[in-house]
């Protein structure tokens, strides 16, 4: 890609974001994120160059939410699932980065599970959001999704040479503070990564951002820097989060940070208004602010590509 093309596509990517996004695609090669016009990915040649979709990230489905910002979250999740099921090549797995439900109610979890079971891709990996762990006994999420982690909330697995690390940062809040991973989980990550080659592509996912986006609203994780110390030696690290219902990205060395859109409702940008309340937008604008992130392996075995798609 020439510099001109890069500049041009960067301009287009910014334009997309300014309008709430019709989808922006990013190629990640050796930890360097390069925006590419979505049209490149949409045509067959471009799609082939981008490789097979490895997984799709769904986030913040908030089943049970019924306020003005989106009175039909089941409808928008249905559209999201149709979008994924309609992909020319199905992803190998689906990742849900939390806030599956709005109020941790059994009926909300049941509805979410029933809806997610419509996905053609049946391998689903989840982490909980703080909305999934507000029931008095903190058991509803773990009764349904706790098996992978032996009810601890964190676990890892491998797929197509990529090592996936699922983390939980919504249980140990310090009052007035950010999300917390905790010493036990950090020690587990160290043991999990030990002995893995620096060239292994790593995908880390958790609900709350693993980097400080806006501390007054709790958009960060207090002890995430200790996690980053452990990840720094790897050549390609992709950190995926939800929680803030909008795309925010950062590249630091070989680590790419990316937050996903919600499928339920958007939230204001950092610091706009009294807090991260649901953002009400015109009905025709809403689908442009909801969507998914898909991640592909590009031909070079060491790199991943991120692509955001709205349900509009």
């Amino acid at each position, binding site marked *: 890609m020439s510099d001109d093309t890069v500049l041009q596509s960067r301009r287009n990517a910014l334009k997309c974001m300014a309008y709430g996004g019709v989808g922006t695609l990013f190629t990640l090669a050796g930890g360097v994120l390069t925006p590419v016009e979505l049209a490149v990915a949409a045509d067959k040649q471009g799609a082939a160059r981008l490789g097979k979709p490895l997984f799709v990230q769904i986030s913040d489905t908030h089943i049970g939410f019924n306020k003005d910002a989106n009175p039909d979250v089941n409808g928008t999740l249905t559209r999201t699932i149709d979008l994924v099921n309609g992909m020319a090549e199905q992803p190998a797995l689906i990742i849900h980065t939390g806030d599956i439900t709005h109020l941790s109610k059994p009926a909300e979890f049941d509805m979410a599970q029933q809806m997610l079971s419509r996905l053609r891709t049946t391998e689903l990996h989840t982490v909980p959001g703080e*909305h999934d762990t507000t*029931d008095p006994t903190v058991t509803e999420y773990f009764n349904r999704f706790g098996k992978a982690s032996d009810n601890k909330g964190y676990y890892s697995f491998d797929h197509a040479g990529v090592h996936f690390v699922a983390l939980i940062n919504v249980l140990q809040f310090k009052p007035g503070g950010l999300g917390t991973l905790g010493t036990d989980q950090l020690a587990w990550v160290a043991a999990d990564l030990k002995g893995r080659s620096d060239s292994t592509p790593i995908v880390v996912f958790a609900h709350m951002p693993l980097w400080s986006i806006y501390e007054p609203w*709790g958009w960060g994780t207090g002890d995430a820097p200790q996690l980053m110390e452990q990840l720094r030696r790897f050549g390609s690290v992709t950190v995926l989060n939800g929680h803030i219902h909008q795309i925010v990205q950062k590249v630091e060395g070989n680590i790419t940070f990316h937050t996903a859109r919600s499928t339920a409702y958007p939230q204001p940008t950092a610091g706009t208004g009294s807090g991260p309340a649901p953002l009400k937008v015109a009905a025709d604008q809403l689908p442009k602010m909801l969507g998914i992130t898909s991640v592909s392996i590009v031909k070079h075995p060491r790199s991943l590509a991120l692509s955001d798609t709205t349900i509009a």
Partner: protein
Amino acid sequence: MTLGQYRSLLTAVGVTMLWWVAATSASTADTPDPTRIVMKDFKFVPSSLTVKAGSTVTWANMDDEPHSVVSDTGLFRSGAMDTNESFSFKFEQPGTYHFTCSIHPRMVGTIVVQ
């Protein structure tokens, strides 16, 4: 109208007025309920409350976003409270009790029981 009927009417008017005064003072914000905390604009209001031992404190969510009330020591923990839902806890023992919203941990408050 007889004198007796007139007296009855006066009494009725007086009672009505008393009721009206009581209802009005209860509905104005000048004297907030001393055992009630509202959650509004991502804050506990008031964030600190002093009550007598044996008092029941009620938290009510006035935001469009759900909130919860979780004691730092695990003494009490509400589930998620949606808009207009509330949670109550009776404080038997004197002491200082800190609490937070598990969904928005920047929201913090204190109950002092005397």
